[in-house]
C-alpha cells in the first residue's frame, strides 16, 4: 500500500459537484465537519479494517428520478418478495433512495410520512462524529418516517431498497422509526440492486418505554455496489430493540449500529451473520452504550468467509458510570472456508461501573474436522457435508431472529444466493 496521504477534500471528490451545489443552511452545517475531516481512512481507529478506497475518485452522481419499472419488478422477483410468505406484507419500496409509490403497499396502522416532504433531521444521529452520516445529511433526498402510536401492535412492515444504476450513482436515504409507549413493530428491511452505486442510508430508531422493535436487515446489494449503513437506536425504560443483519451482497458493506440504552431495564440485541465470497469486504460494527442501570445487551455475530473475502467485526460495549447492574454479552465467530479469506475482529469493552457482568468471546477456525468426519463416515459426500455444516453454523445465528416470518424470509433470500443443493 502506498503511503500517500490524501487531503480531506480529496476523499470527497466523488461527491464534489453535488456538495458544492448545496445552499440549504441546515445541510451546509453538516458539511462543515465533513469538509474538515473528509471521509475516514484506515488511520481512523473506527475504520482500521475497512477502507473506503472502493469509492476512489469516480464521480458518483445523483440518480435520476426516473427508473425502469420492469427492471425494478424483476429485482423484487429476484429477491423473492413477490411470491411466497413475504408477498402479502405491507411494503414501502425505495428505488435509488426515492419512494416508489407504484411498487409500494403502504401499511395501514402506522403513521407515515417521508423525509422528502418533511426534511426533518432527527436528533439521534451524530453527523459531527460520523462522516458518513454527515455525507448523508448533506445529500439525503428521501426516506420513510414511520411512527407506531402508543399501544398499537403494527405487525410487520417491509422496507425495500433497490439500487438500479446505469452509471455510478450514490443515494443517501434517511429513514426514521418511532415506536411509542407499549407499541410493537416488526420491521424487515431488504436491500438489493444492480450496477455500481453507493447506498448510504441513515436510520434513526426510537423505542419508547415498554415498546418493542424487531428489526431485520437482509443486505443483498449488487456485487458492484457499496452499502454503508449507519443506524442510531435509543431505547427507553423496559423497551426492547432486537436488531439482526444478514450480510450477503455488495463489494463493500458496513453495517454500523449505535444503540443507546437510555433508561433502566431496557434491552438491546445486535446480532448478525455474514456470508461472503469473491473479493467482498463485509464489516459489522456496533457501539452499545449502557447509559442507565439494569440494562441488558446481547450480541452474536457469525461470519462465513470464502474466496478472498474479508470479514470485519468491531463491537464496542460502553458501560457508563451510572449503569450499574449491567449485563452484557458479546460473541463473534468466524468460519474460514478458503486459504485467502481473512477475518479481523475487535470486540471491545469499555467499562466505568463496578457492579457489572460483561463478557465477550471470539473464535476463529476452519470447518471442524471431527464434524466433517462424522458426516463423511455416514456416507455424506464432502461438498454436501461442508454445506450442511455451513448451513448449521448460520442457522444458529438466524434462529436469534424473534419474528419467525422474518427469519424464514432471511433464510429464503440466503438460499437464493447460496442454493443449498447446488454445486460447491
Amino acid at each position, binding site marked *: 500500500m502506498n503511503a500517500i496521504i490524501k487531503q480531506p477534500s480529496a476523499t470527497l471528490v466523488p461527491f464534489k459537484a453535488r456538495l458544492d451545489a448545496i445552499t440549504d443552511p441546515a445541510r451546509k452545517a453538516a458539511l462543515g465537519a465533513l469538509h474538515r475531516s473528509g471521509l475516514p481512512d484506515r488511520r481512523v481507529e473506527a475504520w482500521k479494517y475497512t477502507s473506503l478506497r472502493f469509492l476512489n475518485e469516480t464521480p458518483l452522481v445523483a440518480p435520476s428520478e426516473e427508473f425502469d419499472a420492469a427492471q425494478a419488478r424483476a429485482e423484487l422477483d429476484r429477491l423473492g418478495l413477490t411470491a411466497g410468505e413475504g408477498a402479502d406484507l405491507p411494503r414501502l419500496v425505495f428505488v435509488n433512495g426515492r419512494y416508489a409509490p407504484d411498487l409500494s403497499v403502504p401499511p395501514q396502522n402506522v403513521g407515515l410520512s417521508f423525509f422528502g416532504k418533511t426534511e426533518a433531521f432527527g436528533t439521534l444521529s451524530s453527523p459531527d462524529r460520523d462522516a458518513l452520516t454527515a455525507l448523508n445529511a448533506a445529500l439525503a433526498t428521501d426516506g420513510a418516517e414511520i411512527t407506531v402510536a402508543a399501544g398499537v401492535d403494527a405487525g410487520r412492515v417491509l422496507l425495500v431498497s433497490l439500487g438500479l444504476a446505469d452509471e455510478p450513482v450514490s443515494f443517501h436515504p434517511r429513514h426514521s422509526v418511532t415506536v411509542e409507549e407499549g407499541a410493537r413493530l416488526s420491521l424487515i428491511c431488504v436491500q438489493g440492486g444492480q450496477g455500481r452505486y453507493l447506498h448510504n442510508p441513515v436510520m434513526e430508531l426510537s423505542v419508547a418505554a415498554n415498546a418493542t422493535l424487531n428489526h431485520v436487515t437482509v443486505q443483498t446489494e449488487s456485487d458492484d455496489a457499496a452499502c454503508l449503513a449507519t443506524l442510531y437506536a435509543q431505547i427507553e425504560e423496559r423497551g426492547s430493540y432486537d436488531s439482526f443483519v444478514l450480510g450477503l451482497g455488495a463489494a463493500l458493506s458496513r453495517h454500523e449500529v449505535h444503540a443507546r440504552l437510555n433508561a433502566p431495564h431496557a434491552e438491546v440485541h445486535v446480532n448478525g451473520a455474514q456470508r461472503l465470497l469473491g473479493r467482498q469486504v463485509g464489516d459489522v460494527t456496533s457501539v452499545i452504550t449502557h447509559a442507565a442501570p439494569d440494562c441488558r445487551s446481547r450480541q452474536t455475530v457469525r461470519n462465513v468467509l470464502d474466496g478472498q473475502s474479508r470479514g470485519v467485526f468491531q463491537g464496542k460495549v460502553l458501560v457508563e458510570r451510572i449503569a450499574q447492574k449491567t449485563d452484557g454479552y458479546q460473541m463473534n465467530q468466524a468460519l474460514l472456508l478458503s486459504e485467502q*479469506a481473512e*477475518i479481523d475482529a475487535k470486540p471491545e*469493552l469499555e467499562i466505568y461501573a*463496578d457492579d457489572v457482568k460483561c463478557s*465477550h468471546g471470539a473464535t476463529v477456525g*476452519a470447518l471442524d474436522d471431527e464434524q466433517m468426519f462424522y458426516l463423511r463416515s455416514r456416507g455424506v459426500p464432502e461438498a454436501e457435508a461442508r454445506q450442511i455444516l455451513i448451513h448449521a453454523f448460520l442457522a444458529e445465528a438466524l434462529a436469534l431472529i424473534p419474528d419467525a416470518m422474518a427469519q424464514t424470509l432471511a433464510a429464503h433470500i440466503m438460499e437464493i444466493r447460496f442454493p443449498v443443493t447446488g454445486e460447491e
Partner: protein
Amino acid sequence: MPAVTETREAVEKLGQSSYKWGFETDIDMDLAPKGLNEDTIRLISARKEEPEWLLEWRLAAFSAWQQMEEPKWAKVAYPPIDYQDAHYYAAPRKKPGPKSLEEVDPELLRTYEKLGIPLHEQALLAGVELPEGETARPPVAVDAVFDSVSVVTTFRKTLEEAGVIFCPISEAVKEHPDLVRKYLGTVVPAGDNFYAALNSAVFTDGSFVYVPKGVRCPMELSTYFRINARNTGQFERTLIVVEDGASVSYLEGCTAPMRDENQLHAAVVELVAMEDASIKYSTVQNWYPGDENGRGGIYNFVTKRGACRGARSKISWTQVETGSAITWKYPSCILQGEGSVGEFYSVAVTNNHQQADTGTKMIHIGRNTRSTIIAKTISAGQSDSTYRGLVRVLPKAYGARNFTQCDSLLIGDRCGAHTVPYIENRNMGARIEHEATTSKISEDQLFYCRQRGLSEEDAVGLIVNGFCRDVLKELPMEFAVEAQKLLQISLEGSVG
C-alpha cells in the same frame, strides 16, 4: 458496601506512605545539560566511549524521531511532555566501570541494601529477606542500573565459566561489538515507534545477555533499575540473545523516588531466541505511581519485543505491573520459527489516578506456532486500566493456535476497566479463541470468607490473589513472593 468504605478509609490513612521505595539517595551526580539535540547524543556517546557506528545509529534514530508524532491511540491522558526539559544522562560520579564492589560508592550500596537488592554475592535472594531457619535458594546474578549507568554486575565469574555473557550493554558494546552490532535493533528497529526511536537515540545503559549454543544458564539473571536523579529520564536498553538449544530466565525490577513531577522512562527490550532456545522474561514493575491525588509518578513508555527466530523456540513474558503513573507497554512475540511458542502472562493493578494501557502482540508467521495470553486487570480508586492486545495470523501460519483470556476486576465505582483485543486472521488452518470478562468481587466469595472469620481486607486480598493466580504461578519463586506482597500494597486501602 462496608468493605469498600473500610478500605477507602484505610487508604486515606495510608496515603503516600505505602510506597516504601520512595526515598531519595543523595549522591554526587554527573549530569548532561538539559535538552535533547545532536550534541546531547554525541555527549552520551562520548561518555560511553562508543564506536563510531553506534553514534551514527543513534543520530539516525534521532532524526527519525524528530519526524515522528507521539502516539495518541492509547487510552491514557497526560499533559504534553516537554522533551527538552530533562537531563538525558545522569550518572553517579565515579571512576569508570567499577570492577569490584569495593570501588562502588558506599551510598549506592546502601541504596540497594535499602531496596533489598543483593549486590554482595553471598546475599542470595532477590528482593526478599531470607526468613530465619530457611536455607538459601539458588543464587541470582544482578545487574544494578542507577539512573543512566550500570553500577555493578554480580556473579560474572560464575557465568563466564558457563560461557554466558551478562554485562551492562555499554560494556558489551566495547567488549563484544560484533554480537551487539549483529542483533541491536533487529527486533525493535530504531524507527519502530516514537518511544523506541527516542530510546535508540539516547539510551544509556541496560543489560546484555548472550547464552551460547546448548547452554542452560546456571542461575537466574536479574536487572534492577533505579531512577534517582531529578529531572532525568531513564532510557535503558536490554538485549538478550539465546542461541540454539540454550535457555535463560531473566528478571527485571524497578523503583523510583517519590516526587511531585513526572519522570519519563522509555525502555527498549529485545529478545532473540534461536532454534530450540527458550527465554523467560519476568518483570515486577514498581515505578513510583504518583500520590493519591495523581501528582508525580513515572511515565512508563516501554517497547518490549521478542523474536522466536528458530524452530521450536519459546519466549515467555510474565509481568506484574503495579507502579507508574502511566503505563504504555506491549511485550510482544514474533513467532517466526516453525512450532515456536509465545506466552504472555500479565497482572496489571492500578489505583488512585494511575493509568495503564498494556497488553501484547502475538504475530504468527511460521507454521504450527502457538501463543497463550492470560491478562488480569485490576482497577481501583479513580484509575483506568486497559488491556490492548493483537493476535495476527499471517497466511503461512498453518496450524497456528492462540488462546486469549482477559479478566478485569473493578474495585470501586470511580475506576474504569477496558478490553481492546484485535484479532486478525489470514489463515483458515488457524484456531483462535478469545474470551474476556469484567466483574466486581463476588458477594458470595466475600461472604464465604467473612463467614470463616477473615477481615474484609484479608478476604479481598485473598480473592484478588486467587484472581491473579494463573499469572503469579508463572513467576520465578523469588519474584512470586515479592509480587504477592506488592499486590497487597498496591491495593492497600482500596481493597486489602
